[in-house]
């Protein structure tokens, strides 16, 4: 949508500046008084103590989705690594031990120092195995190597932290729909 903004020339009152300056002063005064007397309504929050609300569709840290039996859903097709503009995904593939599945990843590392969080890997994934909906935005580590997140870290997420209508998360081990998923997969339900 193109919105045209017409610039109207300033009238003589505005050109005098002094009245406009007073208007500006009034605006800043409102903000100042809000901060002073309604401190808790400030839009900024003291960061580490109060975390900002991060929406689900924010491109945060990656996670690898899981099958009902707990194996990563990744089939090591390298689509994410191919799509990645920063070349931050390292995958090593191997034949799967599961008879129904051809290929699996034995190594899946994401270098979060290199990652640009563009989300192209999520778009590229043909099996919805990688997502960026963890709402985790702070990466603090002691050295560079720790920023390379290995597969066991990417798959270590808790289905309880994801909403009930997020079916793909809930069919993972520990999810509320795992039982149904196991039945659909023809796996034994304990």
């Amino acid at each position: 949508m193109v919105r045209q903004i017409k610039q109207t020339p300033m009238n003589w009152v505005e050109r005098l500046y002094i009245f406009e300056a007073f208007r500006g002063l009034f605006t800043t005064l409102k903000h100042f008084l809000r901060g002073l007397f309604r401190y808790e309504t400030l839009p900024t929050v003291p960061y580490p103590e109060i975390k900002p609300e991060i929406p689900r569709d924010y491109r945060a840290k990656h996670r690898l989705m899981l099958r009902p039996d707990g194996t990563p859903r990744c089939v090591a097709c390298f689509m994410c690594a191919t799509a990645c503009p920063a070349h931050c995904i390292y995958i090593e593939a191997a034949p799967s031990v599961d008879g129904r599945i051809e290929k699996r990843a034995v190594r899946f590392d994401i270098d979060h120092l290199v990652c640009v969080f563009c989300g192209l890997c999520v778009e590229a994934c043909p099996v919805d195995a990688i997502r960026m909906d963890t709402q985790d935005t702070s990466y603090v580590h002691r050295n560079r190597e720790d920023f390379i997140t290995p597969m066991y870290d990417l798959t270590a997420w808790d289905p309880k932290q994801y909403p009930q209508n997020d079916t793909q998360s809930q069919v993972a081990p520990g999810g509320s729909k795992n039982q149904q998923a196991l039945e659909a997969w023809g796996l034994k339900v304990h």
Partner: protein
Amino acid sequence: MMEIINSKHWIEWLLIVAKFAFAFVPVLFILLLIPMERRGAGFIQDRQGPNRSYFWLPYFGRIRLFGWVQNACDGLKLFTKEIYAPNGVNKILFALAPAIPFVIVLISPCVIPWFAPMVFTMGDQVVRVSGNTVDSEVGILLLFGLSSLSAYGAVLAGWASKSKYSLLGGLRTSAMTISYEVCLGLSIMGMLLMVGSFRIDDIIAWQEAHVWGIVAQPIAFFCFLISMIAETGRAPFDVAEGEPELVAGFHTEYGAMQFGLFYMGEYSHIGINSILVACLFLGGYSVPFFSQTTIQANMGYSLAVLCGVFILLILTFLHMIYRYSRWYKTSAATNKTVILREYSLYKLLGWVAIPALAIIGVASALFIHPEFTLVDGKAVYGLGIAFGTALIQILVLLVKACFFCFVWIWVRWTLPRFRYDHVMNLGWKVILNIALVNLVITAVVAKLVLGGN
């Protein structure tokens, strides 16, 4: 020697010496101005501002004083940093430059009247003590002169830094200060014309007798305020620093406490100028709606009202604290126990102060009954009443000055910086002319209405 000593009563000597302490009032303004500037800027920009530094108290834990501790941290940092100079500068001038503005702010307060001349009976003698350290006939001119000297600091710093940016900054400061000195002087002329004196005491007395300067000379007030901001070198006239083009202007090469001195000088300068504006246009130490005689005659009640005002302020503060506490209790903040523990100290202090002030107020209303002796048909009270009056007047003056301090900060975080040629245009082509016209009109009106000579 003894004649000089004997010419004044001992209490007079004591007060004269004590009044030197007023030299440090502008420096104390720094303590107010830095948190006001930093957190005020934060609030104006919808931020929090610095509020993390704290000191530790047993039981109450981390006391942050809403960011006031930041002052101490800043000072500590500036003091412990290494002082260095660029290669090949004149070390003496380089070190001297930051001292100039700071020395001037220590000298300037000498002509400011902090309270009305104290007249009281001491035994059988009537003692008169003026409200300023130097009771000069040309007080206002002296103040202007001292104030314009601070430009030397910037110019010297700019020259001594051996840096193009610094030199340009220094040149801009000198040009701008000289330009706005003219406007400053001319805009106050109308006021002086009506008063007929350069003595600040007289100006305040005239305002107390007639009407505040801001009402009598509104145009002069705005011209004076704008020129004052420009002369201090504060936004929107801080072209001498102008970081987009000059890095940091005249203090580009300064660090550590040398830089700190520049800043302390600037903030103290704001303090002095605020007091000056309050004196010239807001009636100085005069209490609005009450004359000095009324206050003196009803000193007990006056103190009671003062205590009441304090209690109201503390109640407002407590209200805010309770509201924050309630919000913190429900919020997801991980540090809420720490914050609530800190707030409990403020609550405790507040609830101790309110009854104490109430008792003092009631006691003073009940037990203070001023007694006076008539001297030349005027009631003259004792030492205690004179001190009480002076206290109230100092407080009133400081409140007015604080308001102007806020105006300085408020303007800085609202208006964008002027371009350098715009600054000079505004000074020479607009404010100077308005001030001149105002002077002429005032002269004519004063002649016609007041019928002076």
